[in-house]
């Protein structure tokens, strides 16, 4: 008995085998007879019952509604878009302020220069920083100088107040640093420990200046801003200079 191949089976089931075929004829007859024995249309009553059931099922079927499809944005795509937006905004801010790394700043500045936007290049940013440092240094120097002068003036004033130096005429004349003869020159609050009650403040070696370089409002005949306890109100401007 020959072994059946898949092709033989396909031929058998598609009814393409001659029933006189010595190898497959019997099987071909079996397939045909099996079909004929059981395959037949249902009787009229059964068919009518089935068609009625189909009609009932159709009637019970819900009306097809127009499908409203929500447009879904994939999560990955939305996240990528958000990330790209964030990078763009942050990058623009860094580029506008000249804080991108040198090559990137150069590239972005060159790119946007074509559309008329000027961004600082790395060299521009360096210059700007140097300028800013210079301004800060100058301001610091000036303020330190003012403060030193202020300390000198106050120290001298209190030294003279404690020691009671002999008034001199030239002490009442305005000087370059004190045109109004004001002791504190409005540079800030009086440093602590320089008042008349400060111990050891005897006017000797308490500051670079010497008595007589500046007028001493405590002894000024025009009246002076010293209070009765020897402190100075400072004209209320000093704290604003720092």
């Amino acid at each position, binding site marked *: *008995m020959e*072994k*059946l*191949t*898949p092709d*033989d*089976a396909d031929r*058998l*089931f*598609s*009814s*393409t085998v001659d029933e006189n075929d010595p190898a497959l004829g*019997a*099987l071909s007859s*079996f*397939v045909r*007879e*099996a*079909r*004929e*024995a*059981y*395959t*037949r*249309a*249902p009787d009229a009553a*059964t*068919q009518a*019952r*089935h*068609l009625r*059931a*189909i*009609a009932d*099922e*159709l009637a019970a*079927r819900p009306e*097809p509604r127009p499908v409203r499809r929500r447009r879904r944005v994939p999560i990955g795509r939305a996240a990528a878009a958000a990330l790209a937006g964030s990078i763009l905004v942050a990058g623009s801010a860094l580029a506008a302020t000249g804080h991108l790394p040198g090559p990137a700043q150069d590239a972005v500045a060159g790119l946007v220069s074509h559309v008329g936007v000027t961004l600082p290049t790395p060299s521009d940013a360096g210059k700007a920083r140097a300028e800013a440092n210079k301004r800060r240094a100058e301001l610091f120097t000036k303020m330190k100088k003012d403060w030193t002068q202020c300390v000198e003036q106050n120290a001298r004033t209190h030294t003279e107040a404690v020691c009671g130096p002999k008034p001199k005429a030239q002490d009442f004349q305005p000087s370059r640093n004190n045109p109004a003869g004001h002791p504190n020159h409005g540079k800030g609050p009086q440093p602590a420990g320089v008042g008349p009650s400060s111990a050891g403040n005897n006017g000797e070696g308490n500051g670079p200046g010497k008595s007589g370089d500046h007028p001493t409002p405590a002894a000024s005949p025009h009246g002076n801003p010293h209070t009765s306890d020897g402190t100075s109100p400072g004209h209320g401007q000093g704290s604003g200079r720092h």
Partner: protein
Amino acid sequence: MTSSHRVVVGEQFANVLEAARAGADWAWKILYESLAPALLGYLRARGAPDPDGVCGDVFCQLVRDIHRFEGDESGFRSWVFVMAHHRLLDDLRRRRRRPESAAEPEAFADLADAADVEGRVVDRRRAEEIRAIIEELTPPQRDVLLLRIYGELSVEEVAAAIGRRPGAVKALQRRGLEAVRRRLGEGVSE
């Protein structure tokens, strides 16, 4: 060659399918007439206790699910037979859980009139012999051969229907056919 028992809708199948989806009675009648005979043949040969009932259930399920089908007439036929196969298994399972009074399977009851319907000349004895041969097959062999004979499913379609690989289906098919051939040879020798 197309087997004589098979009713084919043909080129109009796409239009019929579309009309059936829309709920046209005439389209359902065409689908029913093209499929019901082979479907009932499969169910009878498979020994369904109530082939007409299962057939009706299959068409009702078709009405509900037809919007999900995409394909040609051959694919539709395969889809319907897979549905019928599963419906039959459900029916057999349910009957095992709740056994009813033993009754002569409708397949054999109908065979008494088979010779009078559509001019077929198959006597009851021959039909019983065929049925006896089918019953001797293992259940998987029976599933494969009957789906191929009545549903005309391909090996791949049968594999999908019974949840096996195509290679396994080919092996079951070969063993089943060889068993039938041996049985037929014994019958001849007798």
